[in-house]
């Protein structure tokens, strides 16, 4: 594998959920150490793209390669073990486990948590204070931090982060953005983010998904100045 090859290469995937054809030819690449953001309206297929990578809704056509290896046919636990951390939307933590247990079960090798503890508490100092509390007792922002921290416990090469800023206060979003920026020292990121301002500050690359297809992609710096494209697919100016 050479350095210029993407960490994640999604090529022309088609994914069905039940009888609904959700993805109709989506292609996304995530470069080593970079942050790629998936943009698009509600229901465009952004979350399904992440779930297709994780094997939760496996694609029926097309291919997904992670560090050169095809993911087709692998169950989601095996895909996770390959080094992909998934942070689902709606702060998908385990509400009945304590903060400590939520982090502990993410260990893939013994001692993962001890190795990453400093980084995690540096990024999210709140979690240290809440260590013994059940996850369900945390506020929304704290739960989102815990969900991201969980993906940091094992050595992941790629993080899939779905809508981290959804429903959170601006000051919390700022903190999460700082954390995500620092994550790239450890892993590449594929991010779904509705908040265009947040997305444009974080990401290097973008892919716009519309009606299940990837319709535009490139450097986010170029998109920021392309009002026509933003207006057409994202409805914001």
């Amino acid at each position: 594998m050479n350095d210029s090859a993407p960490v994640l290469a999604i090529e022309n995937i088609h994914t069905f959920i039940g009888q609904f054809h959700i993805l109709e030819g989506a292609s996304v690449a995530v470069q080593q150490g970079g942050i790629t953001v998936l943009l698009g309206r509600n229901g465009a297929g952004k979350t399904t793209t992440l779930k297709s990578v994780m094997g939760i809704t496996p694609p029926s056509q097309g291919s997904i390669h992670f560090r050169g290896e095809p993911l087709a046919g692998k169950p989601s636990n095996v895909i996770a073990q390959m080094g992909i951390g998934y942070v689902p939307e709606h702060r998908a933590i385990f509400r009945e486990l304590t903060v400590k247990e939520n982090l502990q079960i993410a260990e893939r090798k013994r001692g993962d948590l001890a190795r990453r503890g400093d980084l995690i508490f540096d990024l999210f100092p709140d979690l240290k204070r809440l260590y013994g509390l059940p996850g369900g007792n945390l506020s929304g922002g704290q739960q989102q931090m815990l969900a991201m921290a969980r993906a940091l416990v094992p050595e992941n090469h790629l993080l899939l982060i779905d809508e981290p800023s959804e429903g959170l206060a601006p000051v919390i979003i700022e903190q999460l953005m700082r954390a995500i920026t620092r994550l790239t020292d450890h892993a590449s990121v594929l991010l779904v983010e509705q908040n265009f301002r947040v997305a444009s500050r974080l990401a290097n690359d973008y892919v716009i998904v519309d009606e299940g297809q990837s319709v535009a992609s490139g450097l986010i710096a170029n998109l920021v100045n392309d009002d026509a494209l933003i207006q057409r697919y994202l409805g914001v100016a």
Partner: protein
Amino acid sequence: MNSLKSFLKRDGWMLFIFIGLLAFPFIVATLTGSSPTGVPRGDRMIMRGESVRWQAVLIEVFILSLLAMSYNLLFGFTGVVSFGHALFFGLSGYIFGILLEYTALDTGLATGLGIVLGIAASGLLGLGIGLATLRLKGVYFAIFTLALAEMAYIFFSRLQLTKAEDGFAIGELPVWLDPTQSRLTFYYITLAVFVVGFLLLRRLMASPTGAVFKAIRENEDRAQSIGFNTLRFKLLSLVIAGMMAGAAGILQVMLNKKVGPEMLGLTYTIDPLLMTIIGGTGTLLGPVIGAAGLHLLDVGLRDQVIALGGASIRIADVWGLILGAIFILVVMVFPYGIVGTYQRWRLKRQHRGDPASAATSRAARRQSG
């Protein structure tokens, strides 16, 4: 010194109860002026007197607690609902009984072999059922286990070899183990098995494996997508629960010196389920409190007769009705069971005044609402 202090602070009351249980036969003996070892007649001991009678009651509590704890591991901690738990309980009982009564083995050897094979068979049965059906979700798995247990019940009710519906008596157990001769020893053996089972379960649930069980209970897909082969963990839970229920079944056969198809019947599935829910699903102590509470209530009320107008009602005849009423009452007053509701209440109190307390009560409201 410090670790002893923190141990006493955390577990001191459990140690206190344990010492109380150790002393129990002698306390009852002193209070009632009976002998803790029964009454000698010729060269045998006859199990008569208040102390030995109460030992039998507590032995049953220990056995039911083991059964309820094993049900709780599966249902409360891992979120797998089985309606066939009696299968493990009864099958190991039959294996143990058959080895003792239907083989030419020496009694001691048959007892030892019966214990090992009974528990091993329960574990294997759990593995087999799990491999065949754990991919089924929720109610389908529950119905499958119900069908399997009922089939076993019908099979043994008709099997002439094991005396069909009547079941068969165990003629001889090693004297030191036999509850009709050495009840005090048997009391301490069941107490030891119960305590070891409880401590093992506590250890397991404090381990990372236990956390994965709880994660699966809450959201299996999520547990899978962070890298766990959830089927394997559910299998493990089923095998451990099966072995514990199997051990309880063997103790039950030793206590009653009898094996019969009722051990495979619905009662031994429903009772641990009720005990678990009443005591507190997914708590360590809940099933124990549920088992002790319900069984002691049953024993205490069984022989009471209430005169109501002209009619007199024997409590034993309407026990099912009473159990139902208790269940409804507890579920309404303690929505998380006795222990579960207490734990939530305490957690809320502990974090009052803490910055997280607002979040805590918010979360509590969300969960109850």
